[in-house]
Each structure stands twice: as structure tokens, then as C-alpha cells.
């Protein structure tokens, strides 16, 4: 199950195992048969730590979703609630407990994820059910290993909390998570950072380290550097449309907890003899991680390079299956048969990704053709493909114009047209925010125009949306301050005219021209160092800093031994930034 975690250069399985051990311990505390009642939000992240099989080993017989009323009957001794510490969930739990069958009472337990909460316990007390719980514990799930080179806190609202509500709880969790990481992988010798939140996390880490000074074990550190970057140092990148294979899957279908839900039609199994009439109605859920060989190969490619990769793979797999004709001796046949499972998995993987690529192509590229599928497309389907792809192309063009500083001081007719067509509001907001970010705020007239169009077309309640966007700096009026974006762009070479999408030599291939600012900062940090871009750093928001947690000579020694890796943390990271960081590690 966790084979994907071995793929990276750091064995993240250690982290996962530690998390599983904690989980096992808690389950054993509630001895006897049990049923788990889940806060739905947690099922995703937990799925990355443990499967049902582990739970079964610890006598979990049933699983339910948390909802009001009475818990379904189940012949178990214990009911365990896995919940986030939220007051509204406490009310539901209280309802569950109160409506329990008095004749066949079960023991109740709560596991708060990631932390216990006194307010929540107080709420339970108010509802008169606090004493019904045998065990109340907390399960600290900070950094969850997603893939061999990726950890995530899966905290969807952390950007909003930090920048809009000035609530820095998630920063605290991040610091805690990093401390856990250091406990398992050794103290990270160098910490670099840029941004207010980064500074706070670093401060917390340093303080926490001081507090635990005595209990510190000397493990040889696996990580060389920690880079902390605030999201608001680079607001441009998340606004732009991602153009890698994985990026586009996320843009169109949304990847959550390493899974994607896809329209089922393309994935219907063609059974022998059936006409394929009974199409599945449930969306097809696929797991995406680097344990899947093909996916690992194409996920970070620019989408325009995926077709070639897939057809190449198809040839390889075809050839492998053809080998059966060459297998003459019993020994050879036996060997062929032993390879079959792997080949079948590869073929199934190819089929899946070909289907996904087709789905993406329907929306994006007019020049990107799969000959086989084109033959079967009807006239109308073809036409609808074309208009959807024209729109995608137009949208991309406008994005690139903004990124290169073209016409950022005027109302964009394309955006105006999109509003007139009532395109999804998120698309409009991304574009206007991008224009604002690239222009360091919009001219008052332009801003007023966009605002009025948005409010009239999408509703007056969006004065709240617009206010929030202004607060976090995404969509604001032009200030008297100079627009530094062109300077930053030129100095850090954020726009590369001639990117090679097929055989890239520069990270700008991920946006077909634009190199993410966050990645450039990382690149420069490694070589030649941030001192060379002091001026540019000053133009970006928040302090930049450097901390050392080990003696210099120690780091130097480790560098010499060539066993150190870089670790990057950004609040609210994107798949595309992920891929570029991984690429960077390879370089």
C-alpha cells in the first residue's frame, strides 16, 4: 500500500508508520469489538495513513458516517468517534449518544483529530453527555505523507485563516509537524524563509526546540535545508492555469487526498457479448501517485508532451505482449506468464491515462489529436470540442498577456465577455485577480467596472467576496507604490519566450512560458544564494531570514558526505509547484 512512499529519496514510510502506531495504540485502548463513526472530512487524510485492513486487525467491525439521530445498530462493544474538534460536530455526537438504546448500551470514545479541544468537551458537558465517554484522546495528524516526496497537512482553509482572519493556528500545527519530522529525521541544520507566516513558524520551531532541549537525540539529519515560503510571496502562480498533466487533472477534475473522481463513461468495461448499454453512473475514482509507473512518468510533463509519451508506452506494451509468440520452451513460457500481471497492470494503467488525456483534450487543445478517438467522434461532438478549446486557448492567451505585462491597466474585453456569458465566477475572479497582481492593483475605474459587472451578474452578496479578495491583496485598487512586478519578472526571468515543452531545460515549461516565482526563489537559494537577489527580495512582502540549528562545521561535513536533501514547505502548495520542486531536487 505504501509503496509510493519508497519512491522518493527520503523514506517517508517512517512517518507513516509512526502515525499508524499511534492509531493502533488508541484502538487497542478501546478494547473489544468496535464501530468507528467518522467525521467525513477525515476519511480522506486517514486513508493515506491506514486502510480498513489495519482497522480490522484492531477489531473494528463497522464504520459509519457521523450524522444526526441514532447510530445504526451494530453488535459491537464500543463506538468510537473520529472527529475534528468542531462545536457543531459535538452537537451531533450528543444527539447520537442521547438516542442510544438503553437496553444494549455500548461504550463511547472520542478521538479528536488533530487536537483535543476544551471548548468541545465543555459543549459535550453542557449537553449532558461528557461522562458517557470512556476514552477521550487526540490524534496528532500534522504532516501526512502523500507520496515519496510530498507531505501535506491537507488544511484547506489555512490560507483563509492566516491571511483573512489572522488566525495562525495552522502555522502552529505546521511547526508541530516539522518538530515531529525532525524527531524522526534529525534536526534540520538550516532554515531559510520569506514572509510573515514563515517567520512565525520558524520562531515557533526554535522555541519548541529550546523547550525540548534536554530530550534531543542526535540523529544524523536527513534534510539539509528547510525553506519556508509564505503563499502571499507568490500569489500569481496559483491563479494561472496549470498546464502539466497532473496540473490539468487538478484544474478540471480536482485531485483530493491523492484521488480524482472522473466521469464514468470513458471507463466502462466492455464485457464480452454485452453491448455496453449499462453505463456506470458512479464517478470513477482513481488513485494517483508515483507507485504507478506510467503516472510517475507523465504527471509532470507539459500536457502537449503527454501524447507522445503515451503512444510510446503503447508500443512498448504491445511489443511485450507480442513476446508470447517467441516463447517456445516451457521455461520461456513460464517466464512470460510470470510477467503477465505486471504487463496487464501496465496495460490497464495505459488505458486509464489515455482516457483521462482524452477527457482533458476535450477541453483544452484543438491541435492535440488522438487519431483513434477522432475517428469515432461525431460532427457535433467535434464542433463542441472546438468551441471549448477555443475558449481555453483564449483564456490562456489573456493569462499570458497579463503575465508579460500587456494591457494590465485596461479592462479586458475577454473578461467582460466571459462575465456576459456568465462563465463560472471562479474563472472570472482568477483572471481579474491575476490582472491586479501583475499590475500591483487595478486602476480605480477598471476595478469599479469589474466589480459592478460581477455584482450585477453573480449577485450583490459578492460584495463580501470582493472585500475578502481586497483584504488578502488579490484584488485591490492601485496604490501610489510603484509596480515592482516587471522588475521581479525580469530579474528572476519569470517569463521565458522559447520554452521547450517536449524536452524542457527550464522550469517555465510547466506554464508554457511562465516560471513560478516560488520555484525561482528556491532555485536561486540553492545556487548562488539569496544574497544575489537582495533587492528583489525586498520588493516581495514580508521579512526574509536565515536560521541555523546546527554548528556550521556539522552541516559542512554532512554536505561533503552528500547525503542531504532539501525540504520545501509552502502554505497551500499546488500540484504544479510540487512537480517543479521535485524536478529541482533531481537537477
Amino acid at each position, binding site marked *: 500500500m505504501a509503496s509510493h512512499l519508497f519512491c522518493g529519496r527520503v523514506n517517508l514510510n517512517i512517518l507513516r508508520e509512526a502515525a499508524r502506531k499511534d492509531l493502533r495504540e488508541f484502538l487497542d485502548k478501546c478494547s473489544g469489538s468496535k464501530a468507528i463513526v467518522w467525521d467525513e472530512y477525515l476519511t480522506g487524510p486517514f486513508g493515506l495513513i491506514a486502510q480498513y485492513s489495519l482497522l480490522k486487525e484492531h477489531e473494528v467491525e463497522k464504520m459509519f458516517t457521523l450524522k444526526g439521530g441514532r447510530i445504526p445498530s451494530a453488535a459491537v462493544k464500543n463506538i468510537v468517534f473520529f472527529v*475534528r*474538534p*468542531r*462545536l457543531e460536530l459535538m452537537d451531533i455526537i450528543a444527539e447520537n449518544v442521547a438516542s442510544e438504546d438503553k437496553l444494549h448500551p455500548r461504550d463511547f470514545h472520542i478521538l*479528536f483529530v488533530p*487536537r*483535543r*479541544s*476544551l*471548548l*468541545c*468537551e*465543555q459543549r459535550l*458537558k*453542557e449537553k449532558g453527555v461528557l461522562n458517557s465517554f470512556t476514552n477521550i*484522546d*487526540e490524534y496528532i495528524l500534522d504532516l501526512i505523507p502523500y507520496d515519496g516526496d510530498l507531505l501535506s497537512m491537507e488544511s484547506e*482553509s489555512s490560507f483563509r*485563516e492566516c491571511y483573512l*482572519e*489572522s*488566525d*495562525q*493556528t495552522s*502555522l*502552529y500545527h505546521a511547526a508541530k509537524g516539522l518538530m515531529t519530522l525532525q524527531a524522526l529525521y534529525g534536526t534540520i541544520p538550516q532554515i531559510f524563509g520569506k514572509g510573515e507566516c514563515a*517567520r*512565525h513558524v520558524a*520562531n*515557533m520551531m526554535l*522555541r519548541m526546540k529550546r523547550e525540548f532541549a534536554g530530550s534531543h537525540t542526535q540523529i544524523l539529519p536527513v534534510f539539509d535545508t528547510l525553506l519556508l515560503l509564505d503563499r502571499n510571496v507568490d500569489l500569481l502562480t496559483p491563479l494561472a492555469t496549470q498546464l502539466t498533466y497532473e496540473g490539468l487533472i487538478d484544474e478540471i477534475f480536482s485531485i483530493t487526498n491523492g484521488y480524482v473522481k472522473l466521469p464514468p463513461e470513458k471507463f466502462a468495461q466492455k464485457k464480452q457479448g454485452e453491448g455496453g448499454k449499462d453505463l456506470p453512473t458512479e464517478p470513477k475514482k482513481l488513485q494517483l501517485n508515483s507507485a504507478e509507473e506510467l503516472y510517475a512518468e507523465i504527471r509532470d510533463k507539459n500536457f502537449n508532451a503527454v501524447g507522445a509519451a503515451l503512444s510510446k508506452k503503447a508500443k512498448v506494451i504491445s511489443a511485450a505482449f507480442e513476446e508470447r509468440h517467441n516463447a517456445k520452451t516451457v521455461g520461456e513460457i513460464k517466464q512470460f506468464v510470470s510477467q503477465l500481471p505486471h504487463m496487464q497492470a501496465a496495460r490497464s494503467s495505459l488505458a486509464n491515462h489515455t482516457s483521462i488525456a482524452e477527457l482533458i483534450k476535450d477541453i483544452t487543445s484543438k491541435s492535440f489529436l488522438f487519431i483513434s478517438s477522432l475517428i469515432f467522434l461525431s460532427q457535433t461532438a467535434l464542433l463542441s470540442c472546438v468551441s471549448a478549446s477555443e475558449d481555453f486557448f483564449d483564456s490562456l492567451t489573456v493569462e499570458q498577456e497579463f503575465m508579460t505585462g500587456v494591457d494590465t491597466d485596461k479592462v479586458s474585453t475577454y473578461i467582460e*465577455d466571459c462575465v*456576459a456569458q*456568465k462563465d463560472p465566477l471562479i474563472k472570472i475572479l482568477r483572471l481579474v485577480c491575476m490582472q491586479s497582481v501583475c499590475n500591483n492593483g487595478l486602476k480605480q475605474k477598471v476595478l*469599479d467596472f469589474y*466589480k459592478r*459587472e460581477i*455584482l*450585477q*451578474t*453573480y*449577485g*450583490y*452578496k459578492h*460584495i*463580501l467576496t470582493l*472585500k475578502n479578495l481586497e483584504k488578502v491583496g488579490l484584488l485591490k485598487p492601485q496604490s501610489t507604490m510603484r509596480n515592482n512586478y516587471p522588475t521581479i519578472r525580469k530579474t528572476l526571468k519569470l517569463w521565458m519566450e522559447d520554452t521547450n515543452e517536449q524536452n524542457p531545460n527550464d522550469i517555465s515549461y510547466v506554464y508554457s512560458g511562465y516560471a513560478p516565482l516560488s520555484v525561482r526563489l528556491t532555485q536561486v537559494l540553492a545556487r548562488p544564494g539569496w544574497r544575489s537577489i537582495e533587492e528583489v527580495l525586498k520588493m516581495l512582502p514580508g521579512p526574509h531570514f536565515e536560521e541555523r540549528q546546527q554548528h556550521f562545521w556539522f552541516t559542512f561535513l554532512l554536505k561533503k558526505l552528500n547525503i542531504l536533501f532539501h525540504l520545501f514547505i509552502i502554505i497551500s502548495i499546488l500540484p504544479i509547484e510540487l512537480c517543479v520542486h521535485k524536478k529541482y531536487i533531481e537537477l
Partner: protein
Amino acid sequence: VSRAKPEDDEYWNSSKFKAFTFDDDDDEFSRLKESKRAVNSILVDDDDDEEEEDGVERVSWSGEPVGSISWSVKETASSIRSGSEQSFPKIDTTPSLSKQGSGYSLSSLFKGDLYDTAVRTYAPELSHRKVRWKGNTRGTKCLGGAPKNLEILFRELMARDVALRHYVHYLKEMGEQKLLVELMKALGRTEDMALMQYKEHLNIKDEGQRRDFLKSCLGLPFSQDDATHVQDHYTLLERQIIIEASDKKADAEIFKKFPRKASILNMPIITTLYYSCFYHYGESEGTYSSPENIRKTFRISEKQYILTALGARAKLKSWFDVDSLFNTKNWLGYTKKRSPIGFHRVVDILQKNSAPVNVLQEYVNLIDSPELKLSVALKYKCHDIVINTYRDLKDRQELVVYREKLERDSPEYRKIQELLNNVQIRWKN
């Protein structure tokens, strides 16, 4: 799982602060008086000394079990002990009032760099002050009875940025809307407060109640722009309710032919305009449901109006109405066709609604740019226009090519034939 730290014991044994209890019999009053005096000694305030006795109310803190006190107590202890180094170097590194709602006493709000002597003196006392918040289950009236205490609290908070932020979160988490609004007002964050109030409308399902609520928001201190928008929002909903009520039981032809798919309530203004252009086109300006009335009341731009009306009338295939949209009289009194949106877009919209070619051609002809006109004509197979354009350009070859796309005996085919046979035309190729 929390573990008691050794510092706790030290604290309990060495300090004079007593443990927190829920007992109402605890002698609150003397301590409260003490704290009030402490507070007053910092502030220069002359009028609240006398009212203490009567003003102080017995209130209980509904979210404060012992655990959090010991936490804040530990902080107090460590801060007192380590004189030089604060336990929390930066203000924000205190485990903030988590969104998950860890309850901390009021005293915990006055942490970190806020430790001036005055606070140290009265903060622990404040933790013993029980304040009853509006409990959901009890429905008791709250702070009306203790305004003075609140004033002091707010005043202190204003000077302490971090504590303030924590407090705001706490109030949000607990759903203490009224208190939050009071706080915002006291802080002078009037626009925030107004928006916060306005936001509540999203929780009101019933349209009548929502309308009334919006009306009540009208006097709030919004920014000038937002004030206009909220006014519009109220006016719009008010009218939507009226239109909805009447249309629901309407029996006009149009409603039978095109039954409404959804109610108009809470729809944005443009959607409402479209609806009006669809079902109530041509009504006099005097009715709420007429497009003209909506256009004027909500100050819709000409462009938006024409686009919306065009969409609606095209959907109904009322080509005549579409035509009238673009008619303007120039200063000589002649009727001319004019459009704030490019005519190519008009053509697109008409085409999407299956307008017949002769209608399309009319508008394609109005496209200014010859290149655009040609490409649109080609796209939508407006043969006559294509032919005329090639004729004007004297492009023989294109005509020949185009002829092959047409049906043998169609009028257009023959037209091209005639043109090609016309010896008077001096073709360029």
C-alpha cells in the same frame, strides 16, 4: 493527552491565586472589586467608581474548565519567573485560540508581550470574573446588564492587537454575533461591522424575512459603494417577491408556452433582467416587472441591457424585437443601426438561437471590418455576403473555390456563375 507539568505544582503552592470553581457561592464580589480598582488605577476614568456595587452582576463563564486555567496559570508562572526571557518571543506564537475552539480564559488573552504590571495584577482576577455569554440552550439575556465591564474590556483590547484578534476569533467560533458587532463598533471598524451584519442575510431562508433584514441593514455604516449595493440588493429582492407572487399564478400565453424553470427570488440583477425581457417585454415603465423599469432603477448600462434583451428575444425568436434594439435615429432623423457590442457578437448570439440565414445576413452585413465580416459570413454560410465580398474584392479564384461548396442548382451557385460570366468585371486573378 495532557500531562500536568511540575511547574503547575510549584505555582499552586507558591502563589496566592486560588483555584477556579464553578460555585456561585465563591466570593466573587470582593475580587471583582479589587480587579476593578486595579483597572481603574491604570485608566484615567472618573465616572465608574460609584456604580460598582449595583453594576456588577453575577455571571458565569460558560466555557472555562480547570484545564485551561492551569494552562494560562503556567504561562503566568513562567513569565513571572523568567524575567528576561518571555516564554513567547513573538506575540503570535502563543497557541492561538484555535479554530477548533480550545477554551482559554480571558487572562490568556493578555499574554506575551502584554505583560505590563497592571495586566499581571488584574489578569488573573479577570479569569475569576465569570461572564455569562448568551448560551444557546439557556437563552438568557446577556451583556446588557454589564456594559461597564465590557467597555473596559474593549478598551483594553483595543490597545492589545493580538489579544483582540484572539477574542474576535473566539466570538466568531461561539457565534456571538451581537457581541462581535458591539466590539467592531467600539473599535471604529464600522465598515467591517456593517459587512458582518449584512453577511447574516445568507442564513435567512425565507425571502420575506430576508427582505426585512436587508432593509434593517440600510442604515449601517457601509462604505459609499457598498451602501449603494446593499440598497440595490434590498430593492431587488423586494421587487422579486412582488414579481414572483404575481407570475406564479399568471396565466398569460407566454407562461404556458415557456413554463418557468425556477423562481426569480434571490437571482442576480442581470438574471432578473433577462427574465423580465423574456416574460414581460414591452410592459410599461410603471410596472416593477418591466425591463425598462429594471433598467432605470438599477442603472443598467446600455451594453448590458442590449446584450440581455438580445439573448432573451433571440431565444424567443422575436427577430423583430431584436431588430428594434439596434435602431437609433441619427440627428437627421434617419434610422440607423447601432450596437454597443460588435455586430459579430450579435450574429453569434443569433446563430446560437437558430436564427434563419436571412436574419443572420442582415447583421453580418453590419460588421465594420471587412476581414471579420468575411470570416463570420464563411463561418455561418451567409452565401450572398461571401459572394458579394469576393465580387467587391475582384477575387475570381476564391469565387471559383466557393462555388464548389454550393449545391449545383441553388440560386447562389447560379449567382456565382453569372458573376464569373460577366465580362465587365476586371478580376484580379
